[in-house]
């Protein structure tokens, strides 16, 4: 029983970080139907920015989050204006190609600036844990989960209680309808992309304190994040959060009870089962065009 509870604790904490990182990916798809394959590379970029602030200014990764988010917001906006805007509305393969190209470009730039060697941020809470009898809660993961709750809570408030948020949801639900009621969908799309990359900035900052990373790490992250948003339902923020928690607990439980080789397979088996039984994902919405297809 202790083992099961420990598995759940670790799984939920890992899942919370995944949720923070996946939220932007699903938000971007929801509004502009762009599968952003550069999302993993943006996460690694945020990790490197955090590393630089920590190494050169001694700034704690938690304190650097607002700076990293602001920088990533700007990066997201610029990438949207220079690349995504031109391919948005094209066939999905075009956006996939474009965002994959951005990922490769970012990998090259990061390698040029920081080198292609593994990097890690070590702070006082990296190795520390809170003991609860026979159980333990890793401090760094607890902090990451707390930040995930704060950022995702803020995102919820933004989407539901601000004009910009309502405009984002309107553009997501029905782009033509949003245009008709005066929403500037182009601006909203840029804002959404920037917000998506910005929230990922917080995830990348915490990633840097938990896992070593290098420019090429983004392939592993994008595979995980895509699995999460597909499981939760592409475009659904609550779905991404739920999917992240399922994948997080699934990975830890699979290692604990099936073996160390299984965490790679189990999430995808879960996804296959979900997609067979519920093709739109756990909380995804079935669209009219899906029904026609």
């Amino acid at each position, binding site marked *: 029983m202790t083992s099961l509870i420990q598995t759940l604790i*670790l799984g939920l904490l890992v899942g919370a970080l995944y949720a923070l990182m996946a939220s932007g990916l699903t938000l971007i798809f929801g509004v502009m139907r762009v599968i952003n394959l550069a999302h993993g590379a943006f996460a690694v970029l945020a990790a490197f920015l955090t590393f630089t602030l920590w190494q050169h200014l001694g700034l704690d990764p938690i304190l650097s989050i607002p700076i990293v988010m602001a920088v990533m917001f700007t990066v997201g906006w610029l990438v949207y204006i220079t690349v995504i805007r031109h391919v948005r509305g094209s*066939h999905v393969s075009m956006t996939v190609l474009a965002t994959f190209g951005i990922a490769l470009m970012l990998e090259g730039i990061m390698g040029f600036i920081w080198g292609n060697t593994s990097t890690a941020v070590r702070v006082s809470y990296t190795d520390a844990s809170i003991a609860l009898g026979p159980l333990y809660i890793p401090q760094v993961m607890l902090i990451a989960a707390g930040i995930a709750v704060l950022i995702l809570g803020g995102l919820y408030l933004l989407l539901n209680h601000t004009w910009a948020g309502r405009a984002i949801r309107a553009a997501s639900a029905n782009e033509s309808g949003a245009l008709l009621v005066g929403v500037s969908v182009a601006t909203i799309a840029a804002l959404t992309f920037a917000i998506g990359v910005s929230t990922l900035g917080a995830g990348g900052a915490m990633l840097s304190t938990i896992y070593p990373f290098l420019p090429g790490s983004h392939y592993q992250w994008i595979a995980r994040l895509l699995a999460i948003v597909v499981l939760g339902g592409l475009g659904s923020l609550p779905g991404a959060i739920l999917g992240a928690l399922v994948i997080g607990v699934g990975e*830890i439980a699979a290692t*604990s009870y099936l073996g*160390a080789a299984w*965490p790679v397979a189990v999430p995808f088996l879960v996804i296959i089962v979900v997609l067979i039984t519920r093709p739109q994902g756990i909380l995804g919405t079935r669209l009219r065009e899906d029904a026609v297809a």
Partner: protein
Amino acid sequence: MRSTTALRAIVGAAAIALALSGCTADTPNNGDTIKIGASLPLTGEFSQGGLDTQHGYETWVEMTNEAGGLLGKPVEVIVRDDATTQDTAVSNYNNLISKDKVNLVLGSQSSLLNIPSSAVAEKNDMLFVCPSCGSPDMYNRGFKYIFFSQQAVATDQAKVFAEWIANLPPDRRPKTAAYPSLDDPFAGPVVEGAEKILSAAGIRTVYKDEYPATTKNFDPIVNAMRDAGAEIVVQGAQFEDGVNMIRSMNRAGYKPSIVYQSSSPTYGQQYLEGVGEQNAEGVFFSSSYSSLAKTNQNAEFVKKFEEKFGGLPPEDAADGFAAGQVLAAAVTAVGSIDDQAKLADWLRNNTVETILGPLSWNADGSPKGEFLVGQWQGGVSQVVLPTNVATTDKIVGWQGGPI
């Protein structure tokens, strides 16, 4: 509109293809220079070791040219990035041989990449001196041109360490062991070799499992080892997984008295920064190289490396340099590079003095020697075994505890 979209798609695809493949063109060899080709993982998962190996190759080329070159000709090394993918490594070696017309090749970094790469050299009857070919699977294919320029294959890498543990007095010898390992043709056999010796000494295996390279969360693995009561952990690691394992062990409060990791602790400063000096303390590892060793050209190598790159050379850089020394010894002794079967025959029958010490080979190209056992002590990588070459007589447990 449709044509614009198609044009964008073509341009985008071309840009990506260009980025992935790099630009290469036929560059015929003019005969005035000896061109040596190598594919290395300069990006991707194994880039840490790949870059170090590249530095070793470059240092060897510079020192060789300063000493008059090979066969009286200057040497040039052409390195291609394989991004830690087997297909690209194979493609790189094919291009180096067929388009760049290199005269000689040197191996890539990691058995994973060298297993397919060595087949390209074999097909082209080219000598393949390899700085990182520890997997025993390299030597059961009947190849004639492959030579591993370190002291022993992976199954024997932890041999000296495991035999030392097995010969500890019974009251100090651990009774249970855990063997987590990366699913990799090098890391797996290291652990298997150690387990064989430790099991024969009566040390019971209480945990053994392989994890894929994509594994990020080691907490459940650590929990399983801790719950199984393993007193010694022998991990077959690359780099990041070694760092992650130590971090997870700390978070779980799991403190086995003895920790051995392959590869990861040999990355020097990167490892210290990843796990922290106090957590590196007492970690055992096998090492092919010590910067303090009084071996052929080592003092000059260390000096040149510090001038070029700053800091002491890491193990992979030294292994790269040693591969160059082995290649040079064979070429110089034979006096020609036209028939590389003769170079291979010479290596099979001779010993080469390198910065790693003397190297000699079996008929299949696997080396005959033994590794050094290193241990992190006070932020310094010390050689602790065999005792006749040790740089210190002190051996401590993990995090400085007793054994």
